[in-house]
């Protein structure tokens, strides 16, 4: 555990996140997963978009890229295509990945390019102080939904599974061992992996939705998440499984498909460009 600190840019502390924010838990578990998977740190690039969670790469001592709002996945795609030896990890928020970056999310899945994407879902746009995102629950309060949110949220595992991601899992910032293990499994998967981390924003979501402070929100996660039953992933993704909680956690997709940069190497061979 103590080794996590070695992966941080200590001189960039204090971070910008509010007290009780879930981003630190997600970041530290990405680091633990990297450490435990044994991937080469000097050949690992961490890419993010814009938003609170997208500030994480600035604190992580790797090659890091803080891009534009919604665009982390295509930047990461260029990196991976140009140099497939690099391990590429994307950290993105719910708005960043599923609203402004939604097109890139689905096409990353379709290509099955070897990138691991961690979606930090705090149900709200935190950086801009509390507007509703595509992952805000129906009925919730947001600064742009002061009469209650009428939008229906995406269910990320079902969206990205349908689009072809070859590893899909969901954990929460309360369910820390699962979170770390799923990220590690995503890193091991040779393809496009999505790990949704249900997080907490006490400042702009919890406080305004009567969920209390950070410890209360963590307790809420404990009480309102259930683990996927063994063998039930297909039913869940088909929408036929019955769970009486807002969030089901677990591994929804573990499959294989041709990886994009490997397929492209075959194009190079066909064209006669292989050395």
């Amino acid at each position: 555990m103590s080794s996590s600190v070695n992966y941080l840019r200590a001189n960039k502390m204090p971070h910008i996140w509010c007290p009780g924010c879930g981003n630190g838990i997600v970041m530290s578990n990405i680091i633990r997963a990297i450490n435990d998977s044994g991937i080469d740190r000097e050949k690992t690039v961490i890419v993010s978009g814009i938003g609170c969670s997208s500030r994480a790469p600035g604190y992580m001592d790797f090659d890091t890229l803080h891009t534009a709002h919604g665009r982390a996945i295509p930047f990461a795609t260029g990196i991976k295509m140009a140099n497939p030896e690099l391990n590429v990890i994307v950290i993105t928020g719910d708005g960043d990945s599923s609203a402004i970056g939604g097109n890139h999310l689905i096409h990353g899945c379709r290509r099955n390019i070897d990138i691991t994407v961690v979606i930090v879902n705090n149900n709200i746009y935190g950086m801009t102080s509390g507007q509703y995102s595509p992952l805000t629950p129906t009925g919730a309060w947001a600064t742009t939904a002061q009469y209650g949110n009428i939008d229906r949220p995406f269910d990320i595992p079902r969206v990205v599974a349908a689009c072809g991601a070859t590893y899909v899992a969901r954990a929460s910032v309360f369910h820390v061992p699962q979170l770390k293990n799923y990220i590690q499994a995503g890193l091991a998967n040779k393809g496009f992996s999505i790990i949704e981390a249900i997080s907490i924003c006490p400042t702009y979501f919890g406080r305004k939705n009567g969920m209390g402070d950070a410890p209360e929100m963590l307790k809420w996660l404990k009480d309102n998440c259930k683990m996927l039953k063994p063998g039930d992933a297909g039913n869940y993704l088909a929408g036929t499984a019955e769970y009486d909680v807002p969030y089901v956690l677990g591994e929804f997709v573990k499959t294989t498909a041709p990886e994009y940069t490997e397929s492209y190497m075959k194009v190079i061979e066909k064209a006669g460009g292989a050395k």
Partner: protein
Amino acid sequence: MAKNKAVLLQGNEACVMGAIRAGMRFYGGYPITPSSEVAEQSSILLPKVGGKFIQMEDEIASIASVIGASLTGTKAMTASSGPGISLKQELVGYASMAEIPLVIVYIMRMGPSTGLPTSPAAGDIMQAKWGTHGDHSIIAVCPSSVKEMYELTIKAFNFAEKYRTPVYLITDEVIAHMREGVELEDDYEVIDRVRPSEAPSADYLPYRCEEGCDVPPMAAYGDGYKFHVTGLSHGESGFPTNSPEVNDKLVRRIVNKVEAHADEICINETHFMEDAEQVFVAYGSCARTAHYVVKQLRAEGVKAGLFVPKVLWPFPANALKAAVSDKVKNVIVPEMNMGQYVLEVERVLGGKCPVTGISKVSGELFKTDELYEKVMEVIGK
């Protein structure tokens, strides 16, 4: 030097060949008329040299992938036309701010909006100059022949690498789609970005310029430097800061690293300028029509001359001022727009002589007779 055999090439095709000659090994694109052949040719030619081509899901993703590829030390390019460039603009600014070398091929068609997709125009000259938010500078090279599509693409890569900045290769649909016999030279200068001279360490500053230089060396991801890149305002460390002093210094440097080197960057072609009294300033396909009309006028005894900027931005202010002597009675700027570049010509010449724009916005190129007649109205023969 023995002459090379002429080959028949299309403008867009020549551009891709030039790009590969310059060292392009990544292309990220999205289809749009009249630039699609740039993507198609890249998809054919890049894998032959071990390079990578990817067709992204949209225009924004295309330039994003190119920025990512460039950060791995790979020379990278994208291409589009007006509607697509409008979409790419945010990331043009990102590349300016983060100082990422890349080339954007910009084939102009008639706008605004969807306009006339297969018709030539030059209505995007100011979009190329100003098209992103915030103060920045841009380099835009402008070919007016197929051979120049090849040669100026190499120059565009050289500028991108030397100045760590996005560079447009901008021209109109006519130059992109026409075919000409091209005799390529044996040697072309190719410039690669300067890499850091020091080994990776905790003290590495990715945006520190060497003494007397305003462009920082550039490491590649995977080289062990573990550096941070952001579109936020940043100091030499690359990390975000709200410091007014650092921000002021950064914005001035990324603008001046181009503007202060305008004389080195600008490439101009002149015809009959020594004793010229009636001077044309023209670029893209318009320069070809103007050249014909200038020769016609010369044959009739009119002392006509032509100034062709091959680099539109930064504006060739000093070269133009030097070329327009006291003998010049008129400067005429024919453009396939409502008058964009003419405003810069007017500003720079500052009342030295009358400057007149001739505008065409029908989606057709200037015909020689038509330009001749309009010119005669100006010079009042």
